[in-house]
């Protein structure tokens, strides 16, 4: 990406897009190269278990680039592919990007759209959080956002490819365990979404509604209907995340 140093004011009120911020973001997010690489690799193993080719798997991680959306759509993967349900699930799980994007617009207001928009292709939960924290310390810098996003994306996409290159073939017991990965991926997000005892009721109802839907309607819609019912209960009991 072509970057021009617009202004490099530490703690400046006006947003900037600096090479120094890019470097700072890269260094801060470097550990994600390993952690996202490992997570991407297990996602690649799951893709192998489903019979996806290397090209399809890398394309998935490249264009979707969302662990949550990839895990959820992977859980729905059966032929003929339920594309409408997958897209609906993708919208539901990625709705948070709307809020993040709107926040970044406020943060980077004044910067040309043509410079900021391409960087949003790499928007991830962690890079958004890191950029928000860095903006409070050093002022808003779109270079930092891009710099922190790169190691995460490289780790995730590279890890997916690595699963195909390394001599790991999911057969037998390994194949059974690999098929669990999309589910386990979502399970690991649960502690971060738990907001205390008030979650018991909506989460129990979400789970029950999903199981009933899976039984009588079909598993493709179970998550969406169960999640919608649970969200309604959370909303009615006055919760906020």
């Amino acid at each position, binding site marked *: 990406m072509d970057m021009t140093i617009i202004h490099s004011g530490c703690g400046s009120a006006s947003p900037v897009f600096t090479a120094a911020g890019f470097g700072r973001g890269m260094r801060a997010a470097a550990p994600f190269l390993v952690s996202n690489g490992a997570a991407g690799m297990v996602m690649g193993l799951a893709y192998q278990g489903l019979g996806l080719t290397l090209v399809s798997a890398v394309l998935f991680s490249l264009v979707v680039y969302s662990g949550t959306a990839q895990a959820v759509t992977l859980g729905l993967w059966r032929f003929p592919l339920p594309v409408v349900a997958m897209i609906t*699930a993708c919208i539901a799980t990625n709705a948070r990007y709307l809020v993040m994007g709107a926040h970044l617009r406020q943060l980077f207001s004044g910067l040309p759209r043509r410079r900021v928009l391409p960087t949003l292709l790499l928007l991830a939960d962690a890079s958004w959080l890191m950029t928000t924290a860095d903006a409070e310390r050093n002022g808003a810098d779109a270079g930092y956002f891009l710099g922190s996003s790169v190691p995460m994306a490289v780790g995730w996409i590279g890890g997916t490819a690595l699963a195909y290159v390394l001599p790991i073939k999911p057969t037998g017991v390994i194949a059974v365990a690999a098929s669990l990965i999309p*589910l386990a991926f979502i*399970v690991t997000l649960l502690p971060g979404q738990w907001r205390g005892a008030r979650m018991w009721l909506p989460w129990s109802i979400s789970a029950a509604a999903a199981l009933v839907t899976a039984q009588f309607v079909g598993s493709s819609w179970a998550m969406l209907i169960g999640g919608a019912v649970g969200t309604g209960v959370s909303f009615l009991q006055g919760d906020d995340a």
Partner: protein
Amino acid sequence: MPDLQTVAAILSIGAVSIAMRLSGYLAADAVPKAGSVARIIRLAPGNLSIAFVAVGCFAGGWTSFIGSVAALTGMVLLKRQWAALGVGFIAAALVAALR
């Protein structure tokens, strides 16, 4: 070579994913930051996740259930997603081997 149906599905999901990333920035003024819609956006992920997990555990039987519990325990204790995924993977493989 990947088949066309697979590639079309991936590209469709990818297009939606990219649109979600760009839309918030482009329509910042229209995206509610408070009120009912914003609350629903914030409340939905947890409820969707637990619904997904419930169906996955039920459909996958003991292997999925024990693997999920192990991954959850790993995440709570280790606070590292890649490590928790490893714990869940190993637990599921052990259960699959014993069955």
